[in-house]
């Protein structure tokens, strides 16, 4: 096997902007469909939600499922289904922003650390170690203590906490590609570093970064839901799934419906995303071995 | 003739699920007397390793065997698990090809050597350690005392293989199954390790089934040789005879393919085609597709039949033998 062929393959698969067909197993296709469906629900919330999620009906609280309210109503008589549908927006957009931001910061750091090595690598490595010492949720709690509750401090804090998660994997991927003959060749011929990064390095580490980001999305979804659940995240009447699980009063009174449904949605979303992430990671490793 | 120590008759083995069963061994028959050595020679995939493993019943998942394996008169496939463990613990020991993988990496050498003594025979820890130390000295390891506390990764491959040999012989077995014990070692270490195995084996009077792809090495170490191809034995003969006058075309081809100092050639002879696995073989002679002498009748099943002091699985063995003899005379003239 020659190393050139081995490293070129993922390059070919990604450099034409995702035009290459995505070969996925059945399980991964189902997972992808679930994610797509949830995303669609979030996008179309105004169209498909039967009620205004904030409209209270105090004469009809804790109603069971009926033709009017498919999943019943909550402690203020609000339609649970509508709240779940609208809740998809912050529940999915939050982790998306976290992961995009963490990737935008983590990947350049990792490229620099892996490419130049030496002092750069040491400094970046130490900084990542320090960040890694802080569980993401704790960092977010600190941020909330500093700036007050809200989605923004939580998302920023989690994005920072997730940087090492992305950067570590990327760095080792960069180290793997760094020594490849065609990179050395490009350097010898005097191709500018920026060009090598864009043309060779990035496309080659992209698959593993995407896989890791997918896995991280699942974690971010859970962490943000936990923060909302604790009352630090989404504020006001805008529902999100984590906040909906926190229905202590109703639960104690024997009406766990909205908490259960929101919990189920979180479980479904997380399992779909993490299945996809694991699948992508496995496939990447398998490709690396087979080639 | 007295009862042999090990007798394998018509041993067949298949593996795989219900749908696709694959043949691994076909009618393998062997006999080995106490204190003697038999070399089992063949290319990788010929089934020699599986033969040794099926003697000890170390079978892969889903394997099924037929035929008899008798050790000292007892039928090994019919033993209860407890009886089988006793045979493995005291009667038959095995040395594997890759000591790096076959010795537990997280335990000390001392642990590895003494565990069988302590757990199987209830030997006291201190005495087991003394015996382990003596065993290491026997296989020629320096500083045996320090080795006992080391871990496998601190030893070279050759040293580790000596450890495995010491472990195998600590139980004073009557039969040693040596599965390519020197293949994973570098060339200079190979001969040392082989010398140790052979010398200790002689002193203890242990019989050995020596498995290798190296025909010459086998001939140097063993009394008798059996050549395997595609899961069956194609020729069996006393070692010197098999090397000097092979009866089976495959054996002849193997001998021609080895590098030799005496016969210098522009290019080394090779056996044409690729070796096939047992499950790929048809009903006729399994070597026929690659055999330069194959003819119509080779398409029928071949039996292992006596020919002089040898046994051979080839219907043209006599003709080929005569032809070879004539060519030899011409060469002399």
């Amino acid at each position: 096997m020659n190393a050139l062929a081995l490293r070129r393959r993922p390059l070919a698969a990604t450099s034409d902007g995702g035009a290459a067909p995505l070969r996925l197993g059945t399980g991964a296709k189902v997972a992808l469909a679930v994610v797509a469906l949830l995303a669609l629900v979030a996008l179309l919330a105004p169209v498909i939600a039967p009620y205004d999620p904030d409209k209270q009906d105090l004469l009809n609280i804790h109603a069971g499922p009926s033709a009017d309210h498919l999943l019943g109503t909550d402690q203020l008589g609000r339609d649970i289904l509508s709240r779940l549908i609208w809740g998809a927006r912050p529940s999915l957009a939050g982790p998306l922003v976290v992961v995009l931001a963490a990737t935008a910061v983590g990947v350049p750091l990792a490229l620099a650390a892996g490419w130049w090595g030496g002092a750069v690598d040491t400094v970046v490595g130490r900084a990542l170690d320090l960040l890694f010492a802080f569980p993401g949720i704790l960092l977010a709690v600190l941020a909330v203590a500093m700036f007050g509750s809200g989605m923004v401090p939580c998302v920023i804090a989690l994005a920072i906490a997730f940087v090492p998660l992305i950067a570590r994997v990327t760095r080792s991927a960069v180290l793997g590609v760094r020594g490849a003959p065609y990179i050395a060749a490009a350097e010898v011929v005097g191709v500018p570093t920026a060009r090598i990064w864009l043309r060779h390095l990035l496309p080659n580490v992209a698959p593993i970064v995407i896989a890791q980001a997918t896995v991280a999305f699942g974690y971010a979804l859970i962490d943000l839901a936990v923060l909302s659940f604790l009352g630090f995240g989404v504020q006001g009447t805008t529902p999100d799934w984590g906040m909906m699980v926190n229905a202590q009063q109703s639960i104690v009174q024997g009406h766990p419906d909205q908490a259960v449904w929101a919990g189920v949605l979180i479980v479904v979303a997380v399992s779909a995303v993490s299945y996809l992430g694991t699948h992508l990671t496995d496939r990447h490793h398998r490709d690396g071995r087979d080639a | 003739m007295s009862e042999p120590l090990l007798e394998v008759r018509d041993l067949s083995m298949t593996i795989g699920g219900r749908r696709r069963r694959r043949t691994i061994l076909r009618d393998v028959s062997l006999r080995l007397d106490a204190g003697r050595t038999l070399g089992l020679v063949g290319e990788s995939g010929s089934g020699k390793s599986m033969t040794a493993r099926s003697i000890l019943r170390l079978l892969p998942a889903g394997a099924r065997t037929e035929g008899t394996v008798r050790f000292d008169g007892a039928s090994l496939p019919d033993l209860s698990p407890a009886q089988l463990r006793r045979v493995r613990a005291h009667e038959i020991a095995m040395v594997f090809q890759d000591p790096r993988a076959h010795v537990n990496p997280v335990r000390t050498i001392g642990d590895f050597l003494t565990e069988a003594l302590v757990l199987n025979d209830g030997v006291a820890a201190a005495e087991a350690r003394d015996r382990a130390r003596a065993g290491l000295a026997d296989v020629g390891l320096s500083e045996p005392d320090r080795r006992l506390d080391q871990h496998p990764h601190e030893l070279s491959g050759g040293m580790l293989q000596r450890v495995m040999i010491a472990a195998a012989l600590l139980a004073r077995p009557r039969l040693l199954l040596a599965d390519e014990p020197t293949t994973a070692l570098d060339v200079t270490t190979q001969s040392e390790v082989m010398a140790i195995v052979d010398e200790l084996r002689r002193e203890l009077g242990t019989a050995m089934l020596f498995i290798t792809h190296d025909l010459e090495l086998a001939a140097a170490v063993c009394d008798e040789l059996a050549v395997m191809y595609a899961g069956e034995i194609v020729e069996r003969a006393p070692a010197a005879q098999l090397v000097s006058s092979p009866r089976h075309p495959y054996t002849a081809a193997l001998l021609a393919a080895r590098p030799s100092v005496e016969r210098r050639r522009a290019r080394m002879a090779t056996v044409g085609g690729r070796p096939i696995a047992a499950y790929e073989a048809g009903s006729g002679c399994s070597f026929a597709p690659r055999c330069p002498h194959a003819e119509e009748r080779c398409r029928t099943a071949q039996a292992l039949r006596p020919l002089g002091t040898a046994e051979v699985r080839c219907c043209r063995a006599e003709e080929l033998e005569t032809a070879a003899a004539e060519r030899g005379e011409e060469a002399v003239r």
Partner: protein
Amino acid sequence: MTVNVERNLSPPGVDLGRFPSRGRARALALARHLGGLVALLLASSVVVFLSLQLAPGSPESVLFGQQQVPDAVREAVRARYHLDDPVPLQYLNWLAGVLQGDFGVSIAYQQPVSTRIGDAAATTVLLAGYALVLILLVGVGLGALAALRPGRVDGLVTLLTGVAVATPTFVAATLLLSYFAVELGWFPVYGPGTGLLDRLWHLTLPAVALTIWAASFVARVTRAAMREQLAGEHVETARARGLAERHVIRRHVFRNALVPITTVAGLQAAGLIVGTVVVDQIFQLGGLGQLLVTAVNQSDFPMVQAICLLLVCAFVLVNTGVDLLYRVLDPRLRAAAGARR
């Protein structure tokens, strides 16, 4: 019985089995490790301290809000919280106090932080310990069962852990609370309980909530690790030597699988530290988690600092502990670490 062959395999001076000053190299590596640990803890403390120092809104504004206060009182408060000192000095004072167990005075309770934290920490440690025991027992037990009983048992365990591994702790806790405490009334809904037995009783449902996700994770890794070892060549050697199956499993399969199992179990133990915050809040156990959430809502900065520092330190220490345990379990890593440094 002697053998007539060249005894010494290696050329003189290149004895493969010997690292001349291995003991010292190992001690040096350990020292470096500990040095790194101390540096990491110090850096964490700086982050915790500074983040709240830089926060908009001072402790006075929290205490007094919009009301007018005489300057003398204001001065006294500023002095009490050392607010007029330069920031590095404030940090050093705070750190010196922390090292002596003095975390300052809680703004909300007007009591030393340490008096509040003591009880809460005891509850949290008890809960985490309880959960860890359950996680190890259930996780390793189920994983081993699945590895040793292929077929139906394995399939069932894989299915169960597959669902559980996607269930976040707070969802599990909520569902458990709603079903076992409210619906069936088998367990208490709120509170930490009094006396050890009653306390364990109150902590059972929270501990189970913490166990579900983590134990599934441990079970999956245990199963995979034991499967891998079962197929290993060294296990074949052990069987070939006639060792009883229970010895083979214990000494060669389980012992070797412990290396990956320890890693995940360690990760889970570290994860428990955050997990307890959530569960504590749900079941109102009065542990560090509940205290932290309350303190954040009250902007009780000294309290938040103290709890965050404790949790981060616990997290770092658990991770370091696992790292060290890992080296004990796998001798190959010990050598690699010694050789690299």
